[in-house]
């Protein structure tokens, strides 16, 4: 459901917000650090299964619990996933990279260090382009450069609680040692909208690559922000669990720093890490309080050595930018908005492609039909039912049957809409052929149009809507003739084509 909402949010109001926020004379500069959990079967350095919402401490190996005498072994699937991300982000893949230990004590960090790639990461450089088809606020193209990407372990989870008035923490090691990639951008962002757009694009990219669920809400993806105003000291923002908290925290922090600058207290903008409490940013630690992580090359993990041609041999699926162009051109010819809805939901996109194949390619159905029906009728139906899109509820073949019937003029569009709604509410009928249902429910289009019936309906409508008829006749509301057509359709239960009513009405009204 949450996802559906995001899909339908329109981008036009954003343009206004952008102009409202930025204050002339105060230049905003941001960079992002995004941690993404790789959706591998096993953990990064052990054979325990990765899991989400399992019983606490049920998915841990001896190594995950850091028992004495245990050793890490790199999971090659994690490396493959990480390499796909690097290629998709146009990064240079280092054929020689190593693992390092980053030391700090924490209850949910069982080794006392995190295995990461500090000195020689597996990928460096690269970029992601923000394009007008991503967001209307992007004019031309905006290139966000990437500093580096590294592979590292996730930590466990601490749950702070209280027992007999004493605070203590519970530790769950299921998340320990799940593979992450940390992607660090250069400070190339100049507006919060660019950040919103980037996050959405990055989420969608990892989903298309099949390497991460991309969800911020579950913690599968985590975003930290570096922000500075007029090239002042850099503040790091952490604990941002949704895209809107990222944006709100940036807006708040931008204003907070401007206030300090305006009141002559520029020195109070210091290099520090701040968190977001839902309404304001709060200090977590200053530079002086920063830890020395005592980075050390891991003494037992061998370096990752890759072949020179690794970049060419990595196979990626079609990526969102390419798909957008494809969908907006023949034979699909979708609008930017519709294409974007599909590209942002892989399940829906695959459904659309299959439906297009079954209807337009195999049965010569009019090419606009699949897009309209998937995005408006089908997805709208799911929204009404308040459930997430599920390609199995109305499968591709069933919807293609319906679209073929429309194309063959065996049912009108409005009747077909009613039938689709009926099927979504009564999945028991899905087993029956569409043509049988059309017959049973008497939804068939009248093939021999009964002229008497048309006249009868039109007369009734003209009588009922006399006020509107007057307005049309006086030339004030010519467009309201569509309303009258709609009324006629309603009375005919959609069995008669709307253009027949429209021609007849125009004749009668003399327009």
């Amino acid at each position, binding site marked *: 459901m949450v996802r559906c909402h995001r899909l339908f949010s329109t981008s036009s109001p954003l343009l206004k917000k952008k102009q409202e926020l930025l204050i002339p004379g105060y230049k905003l500069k941001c960079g992002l650090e995004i941690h993404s959990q790789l959706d591998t079967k096993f953990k990064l350095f052990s054979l325990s299964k990765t899991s989400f919402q399992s019983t606490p401490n049920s998915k841990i190996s001896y190594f995950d619990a850091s028992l004495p005498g245990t050793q890490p072994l790199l999971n090659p699937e994690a490396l493959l996933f990480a390499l796909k991300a690097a290629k998709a982000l146009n990064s240079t893949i280092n054929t020689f990279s190593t693992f390092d230990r980053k030391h700090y004590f924490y209850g949910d960090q069982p080794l006392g260090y995190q295995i990461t790639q500090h000195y020689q990461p597996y990928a460096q450089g690269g970029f992601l382009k923000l394009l007008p088809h991503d967001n209307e606020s992007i004019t031309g193209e905006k290139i966000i450069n990437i500093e580096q990407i590294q592979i590292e372990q996730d930590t466990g989870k601490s749950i702070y609680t209280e027992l007999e008035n004493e605070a203590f923490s519970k530790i769950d090691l299921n998340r320990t040692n799940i593979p992450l990639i940390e992607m660090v951008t250069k400070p190339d962002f100049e507006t919060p909208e660019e950040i919103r757009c980037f996050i959405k694009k990055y989420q969608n990219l990892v989903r298309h690559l099949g390497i991460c669920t991309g969800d911020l809400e579950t913690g599968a993806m985590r975003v930290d922000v570096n922000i500075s105003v007029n090239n002042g000291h850099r503040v790091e923002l952490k604990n941002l669990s949704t895209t809107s908290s990222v944006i709100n925290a940036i807006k708040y922090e931008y204003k907070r720093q401007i206030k300090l600058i305006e009141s002559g207290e520029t020195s109070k903008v210091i290099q520090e890490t701040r968190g977001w409490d839902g309404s304001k940013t709060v200090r977590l630690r200053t530079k002086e309080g920063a830890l020395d992580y005592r980075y*050390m090359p891991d003494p037992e993990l061998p370096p990752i050595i890759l072949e020179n041609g690794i970049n060419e041999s990595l196979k990626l699926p079609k990526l969102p930018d390419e798909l957008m162009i494809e969908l907006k051109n023949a034979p699909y010819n979708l609008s930017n908005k519709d294409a974007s809805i599909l590209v942002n939901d892989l399940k829906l996109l695959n459904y659309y492609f299959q439906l297009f194949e079954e209807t337009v390619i195999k049965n010569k159905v009019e090419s606009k039909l699949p897009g309209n029906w998937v995005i408006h009728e089908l997805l709208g139906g799911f929204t009404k039912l308040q459930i997430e899109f599920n390609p199995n509820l109305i499968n591709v073949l069933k919807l293609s049957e319906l679209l073929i019937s429309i194309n063959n003029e065996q049912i009108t569009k409005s009747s077909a809409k009613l039938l689709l709604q009926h099927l979504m509410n009564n999945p028991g009928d899905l087993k029956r052929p569409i043509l049988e249902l059309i017959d049973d429910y008497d939804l068939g289009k009248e093939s021999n149009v009964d002229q008497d019936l048309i006249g009868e309906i039109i007369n009734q409508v003209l009588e009922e809507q006399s006020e509107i008829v007057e307005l049309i006749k006086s030339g004030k509301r010519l467009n309201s003739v569509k309303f009258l057509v709609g009324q006629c359709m309603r009375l005919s239960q959609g069995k008669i084509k709307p253009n027949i009513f429209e021609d007849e009405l125009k004749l009668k009204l003399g327009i």
Partner: protein
Amino acid sequence: MSTIASRIPEILKHAIAQNEKYNIYTSIRSQDQITIPKISNSSQLLSNKIAAIKDNIATIEEPTTCSSKMLAKYTSPYEATVMTLLNKAGAITIGKTNLDEFGMGGGTTNSYFGSTINPTIKNAVEPYTAGGSSGGSAAAIAADTADFALGTDTGGSVRVPGAYTGVFGFKPSYGRISRWGVVAYAQSLDTVGILAKDVDLVRNVYDVLNQYDSKDPTSLSQEIRNKIEDSTHLRDRSIDKLRIGLINQLGANDLSPDVKEIWQKMLSTVQDHHHLIPVSIPILKYALPAYYTLAPAEAASNLSRFDGIRYGYRSDDDKNNYAKTRTEGFGKEVKTRITLGNFNLNADSFKNSFLKAQNVRLAMKSQFNSIFALPNSLTNSSAPKNGVDILIAPVSMSTPPTLKKYMSESSIEAYANDMFVTPASLCGLPAISVPWESTSGNPVGIQIIGQYGDDKKVLEVAKHLKELNKI
């Protein structure tokens, strides 16, 4: 003929008695804990051989304490690969042996369970050290409580106790024997080692344990094992006339008079049969600083996991952080090395100490490669035309000191004694301490060092040298 099963009570009784005298074991198995391999397996390489295991190797029958308060009550839920291999080969383990806490020390004096005493110094007025950190394993052999013992050697921890107790102490090439289940001190240097009085038994134990293990990321791959095998087969020089290198930088100057006497006698015996060739490895003067930079850094990192949360000792007062647990759970030397290691890793000194030490280590490997006749199969270096077959060197400066003298030494003095043993550790080379008797009757060790992977040659020469000693 008495079966091994019927001899077990007597073996245990002897071990318990010797343990009372010399504090060899951290735990001795009861009769019930000992599984006798089936008779059908008696043809195996180690059938009926009694084993003592250093207590930093994970076993499931008893705690694996590392001689630390931190792990005094910790029993591992899994066993080390070496234990599985020993069991399969028919060996009978009777207990776990004392060590310097987590392997840090040279005298088996830094133990939560007290110092191990050297059983070989007869009629001693006061106790002598057995060396360390595998002092318990060496003493177990010297006191005839076991046929062989496993130790670990990070910077001489098998060779020095071997030398001090008059038994063979073999440190194989790095990566030959699996470290899965071996509690890490400094894992770029850690190797499982073998101690025994009989060098043929050392060889048999080595043959059992010399296996690739997929669980250990530093285990030597089968491919390189085969490559080494091929390159050693090409060599045709017989054992009767070896080219033995004598390292200028590890000379007699630093030796105590009694060791020096033996050393020179031994050299003249060897010279009667082989070519003694002086060789130079200038960078060896940095071996000790490099070792004492890298090993404590790795140790500081490895020991970070002991926070009292998931297992091991936890201080009652430790409510807010782990400091109290760690302060109380670790001994003095371990804390010293953690502090030193963290100092070497901090952002300001990393480049000037840690990275320099790593560079020294790399340069040292290449200087060793330039003197051996056998190429190094790891680096594909080319070997010199007139290279040496093996190197010969002392193991320690003196015969074993008394516990009192040893414990009164400063850390620096204690560290300096490692100058003969750290080079082979830093370069991963196979090395063995061959027992030699001094005129005073106190044991002295002679060290044989081979090219990387040339373990069999080292064992072969050790056996040969022992025979020369009898002449």
